[in-house]
C-alpha cells in the first residue's frame, strides 16, 4: 500500500498530456512586465526609473521587509515605465515594464551548464543569499524561501520534505525539472539541508511519475540522508499539510506552521532555483511553465523569463483553439482564470491551462441534498456544506467556530458536489470576512 494523506481528497482525471515534452527555452519577449508583488508579503520597492538601462539579473526592486522578496530584471534593456498591470489575481498591481534589447547578463552570474556540487557557503550565508536572489516558493504559494529557512526561535526542523507531488491535473513543470535537472536538484536539497541543519530529506512523488521516481531514487541512493517516497495519486497531496501527513504521518495543528511538527516543505522548482542561486549566483528570473489544455495543439513545458505575457506562451504552444473558453493561470483545481492574455508570468506561475468553451462553464446550482460527499472529500475535515450556509447567512462567529480558517481552498468540495454548489466560492468569501474579524480583534 502506497503512502498518502489520511483524510479526504479526490482523484480528478490526471491529463498530464505535456509530461513527455522536454523543457524548451522560449524566445525572449519584446517587452516584459515585472510586478513588484510576486510573493506573499510586502511589495518590493522599485530601484529603477523610466529610461534606466538594466542587465539581465540586475536587482530592480528591493525587498520591502523580512517577509518580502527581491526582484531582478529578467531581460536586458531599457525601463519603459513603472505602471500598473493586471496580474493573475485579476487586480492591477504595480509593475516595472522593460523593453528588451539584446540579452546582456550581469557578469556575476555563472551561465554555464556545469554542475557545481561543492557547497561553499555556510548555513547562514545560504539563507541570506536565498533572500538576495529573490527565491520564493514556486509551487504557487510564493512564500519567500529565506523565511521558511529561518525557523522561529525554539523550533527545530527535523525533516526536510521536497514536494515533487504535482497533484494538479495537467501540470508537468515539476515533473520535467525532476527528470531533466535531477543532479542539480540533489545539490539543491543538500543546500537546503545545510541551511536547515537537518540530516534527513524525503522527496515525495506521486506514483504517476515512475520515471522521476526511478531516476531520483537512483541518485538518492548515492546521497546520505536523502530518500524518495512514492505516493498514491490523490489530490491535494501537494498541499503542505497533506504532504507532511502523507510522508511522516504527523498532522500540523490548526493555525500552526509545519515547523510545529518539525517539518519544512520546499517544492522541486524552488529547490532547483535555490541550486542556481547559491551555486551559480543566478537570481530568480525565469521558471518552467507548462502550457496545456485539450485544445492546445503542442502542449509544452517552456523555460520562460518572468514578465513574459501568457499570450506569447500560448502562441508558442500552437495558439488558442477556436473553441477556447477559459485561460487559467495554474492548474484546473486551484488556478486562477485570467482576464486577458497580457497577464505576465510571475514567480508562482506553474502552468497556463486553456479550457475549451464546453468545459469553461459551470452547471446550474441545485439544492444541497445533504449527501455529505463534501465532508468525505475535504482534506481538512471541515463541513463545506455548512460553511457555505454560514457564509451565505453571514454567521461569521459560527463559521469561525467551525474552523473556516483551516480551509486550504483546494476545491475538492466544489469538485465533488453532485448539486454543483459553489461551496468554495462562499467559503473563500467567509474566510475573507472571518480573517478580517480576527485581525481586528487582535
Amino acid at each position, binding site marked *: 500500500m502506497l503512502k498518502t494523506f489520511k483524510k479526504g481528497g479526490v482523484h480528478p482525471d490526471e491529463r498530464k498530456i505535456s509530461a513527455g515534452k522536454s523543457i524548451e527555452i522560449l524566445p525572449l519577449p519584446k517587452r516584459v512586465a515585472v510586478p513588484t508583488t510576486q510573493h506573499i508579503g510586502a511589495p518590493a520597492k522599485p530601484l529603477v526609473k523610466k529610461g534606466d538601462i538594466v542587465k539581465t539579473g540586475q536587482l530592480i526592486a528591493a525587498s520591502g521587509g523580512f517577509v518580502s522578496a527581491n526582484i531582478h530584471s529578467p531581460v536586458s534593456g531599457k525601463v519603459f515605465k513603472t505602471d500598473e498591470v493586471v496580474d493573475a489575481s485579476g487586480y492591477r498591481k504595480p509593475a516595472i515594464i522593460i523593453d528588451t534589447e539584446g540579452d546582456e547578463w550581469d557578469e556575476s552570474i555563472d551561465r554555464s551548464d556545469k554542475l557545481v556540487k561543492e557547497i561553499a557557503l555556510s548555513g547562514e550565508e545560504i539563507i541570506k543569499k536565498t533572500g538576495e536572489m529573490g527565491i520564493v516558493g514556486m509551487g504557487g504559494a510564493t512564500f519567500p524561501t529565506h523565511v521558511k529557512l529561518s525557523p522561529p526561535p525554539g523550533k527545530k526542523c527535523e525533516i526536510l520534505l521536497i514536494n515533487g507531488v504535482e497533484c494538479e491535473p495537467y501540470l508537468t513543470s515539476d515533473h520535467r525539472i525532476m527528470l531533466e535537472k535531477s543532479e542539480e536538484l540533489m545539490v539543491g536539497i543538500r543546500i537546503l539541508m545545510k541551511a536547515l541543519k537537518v540530516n534527513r530529506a524525503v522527496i515525495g512523488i506521486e506514483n504517476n511519475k515512475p520515471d522521476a521516481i526511478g531516476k531520483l531514487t537512483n541518485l538518492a541512493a548515492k546521497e546520505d540522508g536523502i530518500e524518495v517516497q512514492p505516493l498514491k495519486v490523490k489530490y491535494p497531496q501537494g498541499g503542505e499539510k497533506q504532504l507532511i501527513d502523507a510522508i511522516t504521518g504527523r498532522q500540523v495543528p490548526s493555525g500552526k506552521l509545519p515547523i510545529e511538527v518539525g517539518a519544512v516543505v520546499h517544492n522541486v522548482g524552488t529547490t532547483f532555483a535555490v541550486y542556481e542561486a547559491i551555486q551559480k549566483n543566478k537570481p530568480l528570473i525565469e521558471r518552467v511553465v507548462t502550457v496545456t489544455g485539450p485544445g492546445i495543439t503542442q502542449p509544452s513545458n517552456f523555460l520562460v523569463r518572468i514578465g513574459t505575457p501568457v499570450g506569447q506562451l500560448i502562441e508558442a504552444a500552437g495558439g488558442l483553439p477556436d473553441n477556447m473558453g477559459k485561460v487559467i493561470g495554474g492548474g484546473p483545481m486551484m488556478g486562477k482564470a485570467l482576464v486577458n492574455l497580457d497577464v505576465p508570468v510571475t514567480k508562482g506561475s506553474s502552468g497556463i491551462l486553456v479550457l475549451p468553451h464546453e468545459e469553461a462553464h459551470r452547471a446550474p446550482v441545485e439544492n444541497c441534498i445533504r449527501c455529505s460527499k463534501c465532508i468525505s472529500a475535504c482534506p481538512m475535515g471541515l463541513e463545506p456544506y455548512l460553511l457555505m450556509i454560514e457564509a451565505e447567512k453571514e454567521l461569521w462567529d459560527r463559521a469561525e467556530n467551525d474552523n473556516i480558517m483551516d480551509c486550504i481552498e483546494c476545491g475538492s468540495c466544489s469538485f465533488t458536489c*453532485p448539486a454543483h454548489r459553489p461551496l468554495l466560492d462562499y467559503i473563500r468569501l467567509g474566510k475573507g470576512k472571518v480573517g478580517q474579524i480576527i485581525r481586528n480583534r487582535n
Partner: protein
Amino acid sequence: MNQKLVISPSPHVHGGDSVPKNMYGVIIALLPALVASLWFFGIGALIITLTSIAACVFFEWLIQKYLLKTTPSVSDGSAAVTGLLLAFNLPTNIPLGLIIIGAAVAIGIGKLSFGGLGNNPFNPALVGRVFLLISFPVQMTSWPVPITSRLHYIDAETAATPLSVIKEGVSAGQTIPELMSEIPSYINMFIGNIGGSAGEMAGIALILGGIYLLWKKIITWHIPVSVIGSVIIFTGILHLIDPSTYADPLFHVLAGGVLLGAFFMATDYVTSPMSRQGMLLYGVGIGVITVLIRVFGSYPEGVSFAILIMNAFTPLIDRYMKPKRFGEKVKTVRAQTSK
C-alpha cells in the same frame, strides 16, 4: 484577440457526479428487491409499484408547476425514488386510492411543503407510509401470502407476518420455541418467501442492492452497519437473557423492514446526519428504537417510526457531532504531553 475569456473562481473542473446519478443509482440498487417482489407477489406488486411511482412523479410535477409555480424537477429522479420506496413499504393488496393518498402526502406534505428536495426534515416515503398506517390500519396490515397470491391483487389470500405472529404469540403466553414452528424458515425469510410489505422481505436482494450502493459510493457503511449491528446486539442481549420471550437476532434482522430500512430508508441523504460519527449515533438510535417498539411496544414492527424519530434528531446530531478536523488528534496529544 476578440474572443471573450470566461472568468470564474477555482476549481475549474468538476468530478461529474450529479443528483440524478445518485437517484438513479438508488433505483438500480432497488431492482433486485423489485424482481423478488414481483416473483413472490406477482400482479399486486406490479400494480402498486407502478401506481406509487406514477403518483409521486405526478404530484411532484403538479405541485411544482401549478401550486409553487417553479420549474418541475421530476427528472432528477428523487420523486421516483420516493415512489418506489413508498410502494416497497406497502402490502401488495392495498387499494389504489390509498396509494394515491400516500403519494400525495409523501410528496406534498413530506417533501414539497418544506421546500422540496434537500429541505425536508423527514423521509418523504416514510411520512406517506406512516400516514397510511395510522389512517388505514386494517388495509395497511393485511399481508398477502407469497406465491399463491401472484395472480390476485385486492382479493389476495392474507396471513400474518412473522413479526406479528411472534408479537401476538408472546403476549398470549406462548414461548418463542413454540412459535418458531408457525413462521417460515430463515431461508424463506432470506429469499423473501414470506408475507410483508412489497419490497422489504427479500433479504438477499436488499443486501445485493446495499452492496451496489456501497460500491458506487452512493452511501457509506456507517448507517447500515450501525442500524443492523445495534439490532443484532440489542436483540442478542435480550435473547441471551430470556430465549423463551425474545426471538434471536437473526430473526429480527430478516423479519420486517430492518434491511430495507438500514440500506435504503435510513441512508436517505436529506434526512440523515452529515458526519461519520453522527451517522453511527443515528444508526444506533434507529436500531435501538426499532427493537424497543418490536419487543416492548404495541406495534409488531418499528423500523419506520424509528427512522422518523431519528430524522427529528438529525439537526441536533449535525450541530454537535462534527467530523474530526485535520490535526485535531495531534493537538490533543501535544496538550497532554505538555502538562
